[in-house]
């Protein structure tokens, strides 16, 4: 498993998802914290290419042996690609949550939503606040 990191070039959603914005598209995944909470990911059920995501709404599920967890969309858009490699190797979500463990790629629907995402510092502060509750 990778060490705990929150790269500075990503936007973060409080439900422990990240988005890497690249022009009019973005890649989504779950954060190091999210995969650590979940444990070994053993199944990712990808949404259909062409379906839409709505910011703050679940768009997929990841499962560990013990539990299933909804994945919340950080941004709205249309799914243009899913990470098919995860069907054979879902553990990539644990091993490389910001790289090979990406979940979907989305054509963004509302660029203004990007401003609502947290930067890495703000997300780390959120985690610190949650863990001290």
């Amino acid at each position, binding site marked *: 498993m990778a060490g705990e990191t929150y790269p500075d070039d990503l936007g973060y959603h409080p439900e422990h998802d990240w988005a890497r914005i690249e022009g009019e598209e973005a890649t989504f995944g779950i954060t190091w914290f999210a995969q650590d909470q979940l444990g070994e990911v053993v199944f990712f059920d990808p949404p259909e290419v062409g379906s839409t995501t709505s910011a703050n709404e679940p768009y997929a599920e990841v499962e560990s*042996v013990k539990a299933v967890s909804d994945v919340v969309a950080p941004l709205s858009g249309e799914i243009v690609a899913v990470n098919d490699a995860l069907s054979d190797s879902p553990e990539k979500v644990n091993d490389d949550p910001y790289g090979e463990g990406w979940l979907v790629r989305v054509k963004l629907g509302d660029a203004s939503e990007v401003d609502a995402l947290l930067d890495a510092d703000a997300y780390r502060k959120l985690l610190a606040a949650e863990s001290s509750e």
Partner: protein
Amino acid sequence: MPVQYEGIRHEHVAVRTRAGLFDVSHMGQVETRGPDAEAFLQRVLSNDVSKIQPGGAQYSVLCKEDGGVLDDLFTYRLDDGSFLTVTNAANHERDFAWLAEHAEQFDATVTDAAERYAMLALQGPDARAILARHIDAEAPPRMRTARMRVAGADCLVCGTGYTGEDGVELLVAPDDSAAVWDALTGGGATPAGLGARDTLRLEVCFHLYGNDLSEDRNPIEAGLGWCCKLDTGFVGSDALRDLEPAELLVPFAFTGPGIPRPGNPVHTEHGGGTVTSGTLSPCLDTGIGMAYVPAAARAPGTPIEIDVRGKPRAAEVRERPLYKDQG
């Protein structure tokens, strides 16, 4: 016991290939003694208690008058007039109250012994070799029990477990349990948690009370008729006689992607059912579980469909156990 130490799959594979150690001290114990101890247990437990030799062990269920299951339990016969019964943690108080009430008609005393015992389960193909380095006698074989010192601590060593692997369970005074734990993990046993315990027992189709067994289900529909000896006249036996259940608990495996979870609806061409246990099998690498289905859909190979949070998933009824030792 935590859900996991290093990870459920790692711990699961350790038990299947080497040895794992579970702290199952949450389980309860009830002692039964007295001239009528056997007659009393014969009245409340579903199996034929008279068949347990001193130093023997037996699995049974505890039923209500209507046949509903109160608990599933292992009973050890320590000597002619002394038995130890291991209860599920969540049921322990209810079991003890039930046993104490029914014991009043017998010359037998039941004692709540849960506070006197910690319990460790050492399971896996290497379990006996690891244990052998910490005992100076022969460990009891499968379904037998013996009192001996393990790593210096007085233990009741039982050739039982709930993983489908060979191994032992150790009943030990709580103050001594940490030393025994350290000796066995130091000897190579992998600490294993509740998550692996659940995946291991489900691969071999052992029941979990609260999932696969409940007061609303009888042992016949749960597939536990083999441990219900109706001619012993146990409480609930009349309700189970000549029973032809409309539903039966069957093991199943997914034939495609997905992981079943308890509560998922089941669709068969003979009607609906419900998943009671479900997980990803670490050894088979597919979704597996147990479900109550219409009796007509019981045959291994019957295709069924499981609704996993709105998604239909293809599965088929399988024979038990779902996992068989490849060696």
